[in-house]
């Protein structure tokens, strides 16, 4: 790899004001961008056969969540950022998991829940800041080049500076449930610096 073909992130910054908001050929309806189950606890469908619920929530929603949990046959209420990992270790098959909080917390908690063995249909997500990932919010972005996950207030099609490699990343319509993050890649795609091969080489640093 020759480094002189790769522009430094500093040189790239601010150079790409016109960002394509929708990737050509990508149908917004079928992308992996999250569509949350509800924005209000009261709107959740409650399966009467489920005997135990694990409810994880952010501190500001705690009172409302406790009231909701009171209506369930049995429930464990934990903190979405600090208490969920322990609770998942003792959770049983047949339970349901309800996640209540801002999108980024819900996405992270959803990722941990699936990793612990929960199925997609067993995790109910209630977002308090937007009905879907198309609404701007604080989100995680996975860098395609250095694999660092950065957080920031950015929407799909926007740009964010990677906290790991300082590259300017364009946020794609691709959301990884496993990484609980949007895919971010070099905002100019490397096209003016010698074609796709150049970008791939930069990603292997």
């Amino acid at each position, binding site marked *: 790899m020759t480094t002189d073909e790769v522009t430094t992130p500093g040189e790239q910054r601010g150079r790409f004001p016109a960002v394509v908001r929708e990737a050509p050929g990508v149908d917004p309806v079928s992308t992996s961008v999250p569509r949350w189950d509800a924005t209000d606890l009261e709107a959740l469908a409650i*399966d009467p056969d*489920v005997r135990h619920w694990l409810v994880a929530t952010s501190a500001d929603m705690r009172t409302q969540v406790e009231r909701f949990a009171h209506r369930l046959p049995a429930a464990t209420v934990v903190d979405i950022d600090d208490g969920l990992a322990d609770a998942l270790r003792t959770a049983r098959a047949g339970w349901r998991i309800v996640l209540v909080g801002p999108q980024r917390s819900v996405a992270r908690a959803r990722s941990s829940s699936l990793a612990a063995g929960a199925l997609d249909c*067993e995790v109910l997500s209630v977002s308090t800041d937007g009905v879907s990932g198309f609404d701007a919010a604080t989100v995680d972005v996975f860098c395609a080049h250095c694999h660092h996950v950065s957080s920031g207030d950015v929407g799909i099609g926007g740009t964010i500076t990677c906290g790991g490699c300082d590259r300017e990343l364009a946020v794609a319509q691709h959301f990884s449930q496993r990484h609980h993050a949007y895919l971010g890649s070099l905002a100019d795609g490397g096209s003016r610096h010698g074609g796709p091969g150049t970008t791939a080489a930069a990603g292997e640093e």
Partner: protein
Amino acid sequence: MVEELALVVTRIRDLGGDIRAITLADPEGEALPSFTAGSHLGVAWAPGQRNSYSLTSSGVMPHEYSIAVRRNDSGRGGSSWMHSLGHGACVYATSPVSAFAPVATATHHVLVAGGIGVTPVLSHVREALTWGRSFEVIYRFRPGAGAYADELSQLCGERLAMPSDRSAFDELIDDVLTDRPLGTHLYMCGPAQMIADVAERARRRGWPAARLHAEAFAAAGDAGGTPFRVDLAMSGSQVEVDSDVALLDALIAAGLDVPHLCRQGVCGQCATPVAAGDIDHRDSYLTADERNGGRVIMPCVSRAAGERITLDL
């Protein structure tokens, strides 16, 4: 890709209860295609007739395939034919077909076997031991018909439970359904009634269908029902289906080459397009959406819901 294999019988062992273990190998002793736990062979026992038998042996670069066949003299004749095979006999079979595989993301596997339904469970156990997966086995059988009970006991140790009666079995199932880790998946193989019972208990304890995996041993006559007439859209001809004949057999008898394998509505090979008419879906292959769509039928078990149906054949 399913291919046709020529195999020879290398070992025969009677397991009691009319169950015979048959081991097959390549005639030249070559390695056979590998398979995942829960796979079966489609063994040809007459022209156009195949029976599916679960593989009980290890699937990693195998040099032999072992299956177990329960003799059923009131069946269509496949199991009797299998029992007539001697040492060195030649058998044609499909390469292994996977329709009951372990779920890779499961954190714990509960394997429930009823009677001869123990056969795929045996290969699940071997694979779980090879890869160090967490598992347990619940095996229920009639007195004297516990095929592979000793072998399973040696393989599983404490992880095997063999409840002696129905209430002990139900109690154990309820315990499993109430108190197993979040990522547990449950696999059932045995009589259709046992599977339906366990599935209902699971549903009442909040288990989604996606945690349950089943391979049913359909009873003979399940494909029968009221007689109906089939209109064939392509050829313009008609086929009458009598009450005791499966739609698949009626189509084959009429000279149509309908691919098929399991004859239990499980494998999906015989999927046939429907142009018009209501369907009595009896398979476990199609999704709910496909059923409601009414555009495809599994003729090995399913029938017309009315007096007529039109197939795109």
